[in-house]
């Protein structure tokens, strides 16, 4: 059976959920071989094996953290040369897409980004994508070289499928040009304790209607009652009420949770682009004419400062 390379997204060996989704999708095409760069391969290997990795190719070097993107491309290329896979799957993060893009150029292969589903096909893997602010769904294939495909979080439910997961060291030599962009310093983001926006099963977002940074705790309280991530519309971010890393929309994150709750968000195209594929959509807005109501499964026309706290209290009391 053909092997499929899966690029592992992890924090010091703690494998992030999108990678498990990738392993699950990879098994539809062939045998997953995980590529783990940086520290913690032995820790990661147990999880990777549980979700179907037959092998874990591991490399650790200071270059991965000291220079931007390119050293990781060198390593993924080395894995590609070692395995000759049927496809290369990479998580659709900002960095993942850049790694995949450079690999595609380097190995002379076509690339598809932001797939939301993947199936085996007679002429290679078929990727489903959501385009034009999720107004269209396309099915695409790579027609030259080895398909390089980046996959968005929440594209599949991770399924355990225990495999060997044998760790093998991957020899990587870094090209002279791979150390051109130095990471001079790195300031980690403070953890909010909430789930990652793109990976969360439930997202609660606030927009212009929240009317000030000082009011965002109302949104956060609802999110916390549901164990949800917090999002914000571009209007709220541009106004400086919430960090850009939480922006949902065309120039922010694109999310596809089981439940999306929009509070005080009108639903401009820029926002819809980032949340329209959510399974269930709920909105609270003062304006009955707001375009967001065209998308909802359930909508409440009303003041979010009355509705949201009441909802939060009700959820808390139901959960006991």
């Amino acid at each position: 059976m053909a092997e499929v390379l899966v690029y592992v997204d992890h924090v010091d060996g703690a494998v992030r959920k999108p990678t498990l989704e990738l392993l699950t999708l990879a098994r539809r095409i062939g045998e997953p071989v995980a590529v783990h760069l940086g520290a913690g391969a032995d820790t990661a290997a147990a999880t990777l094996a549980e979700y179907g990795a037959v092998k874990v190719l591991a490399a650790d070097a200071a270059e991965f953290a000291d220079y931007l993107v390119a050293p990781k491309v060198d390593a993924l290329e080395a894995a590609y040369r070692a395995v000759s896979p049927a496809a290369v799957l990479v998580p659709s993060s900002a960095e993942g897409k850049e790694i995949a893009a450079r690999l595609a150029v380097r190995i002379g292969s076509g690339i598809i980004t932001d797939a939301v589903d993947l199936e085996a096909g007679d002429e290679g893997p078929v990727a489903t994508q959501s385009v034009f602010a999720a107004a269209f769904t396309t099915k695409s294939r790579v027609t030259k070289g080895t398909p390089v495909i980046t996959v968005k979080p929440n594209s599949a439910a991770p399924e355990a499928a225990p495999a060997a997961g044998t760790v093998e060291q991957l020899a990587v030599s870094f090209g002279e040009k791979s150390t051109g962009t130095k990471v001079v310093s790195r300031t980690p983001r403070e953890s909010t304790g909430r789930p990652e926006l793109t990976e969360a099963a439930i997202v609660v977002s606030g927009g212009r209607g929240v009317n000030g940074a000082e009011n965002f705790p109302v949104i956060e309280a609802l999110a916390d009652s549901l164990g949800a991530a917090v999002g914000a519309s571009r209007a709220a971010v541009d106004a400086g009420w919430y960090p850009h890393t939480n922006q949902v929309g065309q120039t922010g994150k694109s999310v596809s949770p089981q439940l999306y709750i929009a509070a005080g968000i009108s639903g401009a195209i820029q926002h819809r682009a980032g949340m329209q594929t959510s399974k269930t959509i709920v909105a609270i807005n003062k304006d009955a004419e707001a375009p967001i109501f065209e998308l909802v499964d359930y909508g409440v026309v009303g003041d979010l400062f009355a509705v949201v706290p009441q909802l939060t209290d009700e959820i808390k009391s139901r959960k006991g």
Partner: protein
Amino acid sequence: MSLRIVVTVKYVPDATGDRHFAEDLTVDRDDVDGLLSELDEYAVEQALQIKEAADGDAEITVLTVGPEDANDALRKALSMGADKAVHVEDDDLHGTDALGTSLVLAKALEHVGYDLVISGMASTDGGMGVVPAMLAERLGVPQVTLLSEVKVEDGKVTGRRDGDAASEQLEAALPAVVSVTDQSGEARYPSFKGIMAAKKKPVESLDLSDLGIDADEVGLEGSWTTVDEAAERPARTAGTIVKDEGEGGKQLAEFLASQKFI
């Protein structure tokens, strides 16, 4: 020697218009009004600020690959203050994918000459966000991408890249490829004077043969990917909408419970 800045820009269908696919499953660019991709305005803005910081000792060229109408995108950038423009236009380019586009841009950049390439973070149509990384790979120069702050000094580019896990301070020697996000700073509006001046600024036109690219390396035929199907997403079925009469939050909780979210 003055700094040669090249800003890559894309002419895209208006995102607020009714975007759809043509019969060959390429993006329909005929039936929808086009414009300079909003995210590229940030790249033009940063180029102008870098030039201003260098006391004007820089030359800004805007480069696009696209159909005849893409000239509108170049004019917009020139009216914002760029100095000159290069338009790669060829019938054989129709249907070119990101790999092909990066090939054409890379050849054009080598043809024009550059110290600093600045791109937007992604286009607002295809939205892959991969072209800047591909350009760095093809040109063999440092990739300094997704910056929300950028500065050029003493032959070096520095900037801040805000990722999900961390914020990174980056540094690279020129020549380099930079991309900037929509957090890098509001783009200026063209002034009346700028719009008038833009009409007189030079726009160089290049085709594939000028760049030594064969027609079969680009276009729909030369594409590395193919779209087999494109279907309009079915409209969401109309949901229940209630007016809050004091119990809106409780009604919503009831709905969430019925859907097993609580």
